[in-house]
C-alpha cells in the first residue's frame, strides 16, 4: 500500500500521458486538461503545508528568542496582514482587480521589493564579469569574445565605434552572426542533449527504477 501503489500509479499515469500524444481520440485527449486542473488544485492544498511550516519555524524563533527573532515576528505579521486583507477585504475572486486593498499592498510593497531584488542582478552581473570572466584558457576566451561582440553589437554605441569598418564587420552584424550561427548551434546541442536526458529520466521514473519519490515504508 505505502510503496507499491504509488509506484503503480506513477507508471500508469506516466504511460497514459505518453499515449495521449499519439491518440487524439477522447477520452485520452482530455487527460492533460484534467491533470492541469488536478495539479492546480493539489498546489492550492499543498501551500497550506508550506505556509504552516513557515509560520511554525518563525514562531519557534520568536518563542525561543533566537538570534534575529524580531525579524521572524515581522515575517509573521506581514504574512498575516496580506492574507487577512486578501481573503476578507479585497472583493473575493476579484482580489486582483485594480484598486483593491490587496493590489495596494502588491503595488507598493511587493512590487518594489521584487523589482529591486531583480535589479540587484545588474550589480552582481558587473562584479561577476569583473571577477570571474578572465581569459584563463581557450574556452574562457571564447566565452569572452562572444560576450564582447554581443554586448557592443546590441547597443547603438557599438555601431558608432565600429562605423569605420566595412558594413559586414559592424558590431551589430557581428553580433547577429554570433547569435545566428555559434549561439544557435550551441543552443541546439544543449536542447537535444536535454531532450534525451529528460527522456531517460522520465523513463526511469515511470518504470520505477528511480523510486526515491515514494519514500520508505
Amino acid at each position, binding site marked *: 500500500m505505502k510503496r507499491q501503489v504509488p509506484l503503480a500509479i506513477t507508471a500508469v499515469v506516466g504511460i497514459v500521458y505518453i499515449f495521449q500524444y499519439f491518440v*487524439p*481520440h477522447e477520452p485520452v485527449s482530455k487527460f492533460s486538461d484534467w491533470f492541469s486542473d488536478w495539479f492546480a488544485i493539489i498546489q492550492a492544498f499543498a501551500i497550506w503545508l508550506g505556509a504552516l511550516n513557515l509560520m511554525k519555524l518563525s514562531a519557534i524563533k520568536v518563542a525561543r528568542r533566537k538570534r534575529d527573532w524580531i525579524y521572524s515576528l515581522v515575517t509573521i505579521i506581514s504574512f498575516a496582514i496580506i492574507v487577512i486583507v486578501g481573503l476578507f477585504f479585497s472583493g473575493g475572486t476579484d482580489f486582483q482587480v485594480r484598486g483593491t486593498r490587496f493590489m495596494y499592498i502588491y503595488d507598493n510593497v511587493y512590487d518594489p521589493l521584487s523589482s529591486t531584488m531583480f535589479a540587484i542582478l545588474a550589480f552582481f552581473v558587473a562584479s561577476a564579469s569583473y571577477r570571474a570572466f578572465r581569459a584563463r584558457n581557450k574556452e574562457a576566451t571564447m566565452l569572452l569574445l562572444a560576450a564582447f561582440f554581443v554586448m557592443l553589437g546590441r547597443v547603438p554605441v557599438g555601431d558608432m565605434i565600429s562605423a569605420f569598418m566595412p558594413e559586414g564587420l559592424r558590431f551589430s552584424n557581428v553580433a547577429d552572426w554570433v547569435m545566428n550561427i555559434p549561439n544557435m548551434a550551441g543552443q541546439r546541442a544543449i536542447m537535444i542533449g536535454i531532450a534525451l536526458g529528460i527522456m*531517460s529520466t522520465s523513463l526511469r521514473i515511470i518504470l520505477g527504477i528511480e523510486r*526515491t519519490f515514494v519514500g520508505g515504508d
Partner: protein
Amino acid sequence: MVFLAVLMLSVTGHPALAQEQQAARLTDTAQVDTTALLEPELVAPATVGGISAEDTPDDAGKSITVSWELSVDDTTGKENVAQYIVLRGTSSDGPFDTAGTATAGTNTLTDGQVENGIDYFYKVIAVSSTLLPSGEELSASLPQDLYDAARASGQWYHEARTTRILPWVLVIGLSILWFIKAAKKGRELYVRPIAGLAEVEHAIGRATEMGRKIVYVPGIQDMDNVQTLAGVTILGRIAKLAAEYDAQLDVPVSRSLVMVTAREVVKEAYLSVGRPDAFNEDMVHYITDDQFGYAAALDGLFVREKPATIFYMGAFYAESLILAETGNTIGAIQIAGTAMPAQLPFFVAACDYTLIGEELFAASAYLSKEAKLLGSLKGQDVAKVLILIAAIIGVLMATLGFVNISGWFRV
C-alpha cells in the same frame, strides 16, 4: 438585396456611416439600415471559388475543416473583402447559420461546433463588412450551388506523430531499456567521469570538517517540472552522503509540493544508511513561492550562516546569479546543475563546478553508481549516435541535391 446594400455601405471609405451602422448592429444584428440605399456605386466582392469540407484530421472529433479558394476581390490592390463568413447547415438547401468567420486572406476555418457522425453542409461567402449579418441578409446573398458536405469523427491515432515520432520513441526507449537490462545482468558499463560529480563527496566532507552547513537548493520550479524531479532525486543521493558524513543538511525550498517530496526523499536517504535519529523534518523547510522573496531569504541565510557547501540542482531563472554571487563572496564551495541555458554562464562563472544541461539528468545515475541507472545513460548515447547519423546523412543528401528529408522531422 438589402444585405448587399448593407455591405456596400460598410465598405471602408465611409467610416462615419459604417460606425453608426456597426454600433447599431451591436444592439440588434437583425436590424437593417435603409440609409444604405444611398450608396449605389459600391459593389459586393466576388464570391469564393470552390469550397471543400472534410473531417479535421488527427483530432478528437466534433470538428470539420472547411477550406475555399479566395475571392478574386481578395488580392493585393483589390482589397474589397473584409472577411469570409462560413455557414453551416444540416441539408444542402438550408437553413444555414454562421459557423465562424475568417479574415481576408485566410482560406480555411475549423468548425468545432459540430457533432460526430452527422452530415453538415457548408457555404462560404465573402463580405466587405467586418460585422456579422443577420439571417435573412445571409439567405439573400447565398451562392446557390456552391457548397460541400462532411461528417466529423475522432481518430484513434495521430498520423504524422505515429509515423514520424513513435519509431524514434520506440527505438530510443527500447535501447535505454535494453542497456538497463544488460546492466542488471552485471555487464560492465563505462561512463566518462564528470568533474562536478567527482567533487561532490569532497565538498560534503569539507563541510563536515568545518562543522558548517550544506545548503541544497532544488531550483524554484514546482514538481510539475522535470528538472525539479532531477534535482530532488540528486538530493536523495546527497542526503545519503551527508548522513554518512554526519554533516548538517539544510534544504530551503520555494514550493510546498517540493517540500513534501524532498522530505520523503531525505528521510528515505537517512533511513537507508541507518541514521533515522539524525533526520529532522525541518531540514527541509518552505520559505516562499516567490522567486525573489526566496532569493532574498537565501541571501540572508548565506551571509548569516556561512554554509561551507552549496548545491544548486534544478530549474533556475534570474535568481541563479544572486545566489551564486552571494555564495561566492562567503567562500562556499558551489556545485550547480541546470538545464536552463540562460543561467549556465553565470553558474559557470560563479560556481566551482557546473553540470551542463544533460549532465544534470545524468547526475543521479552517476552518484547512485547503480548499474541499472548507468545503463539508461548508455541508452541516451545510442540515441545521440542515431541523431548524428540522421543529421549527417540528411545534410549530405540535401547538399548533394538528392532529396531534403527535413520534412520527416516535422509534425
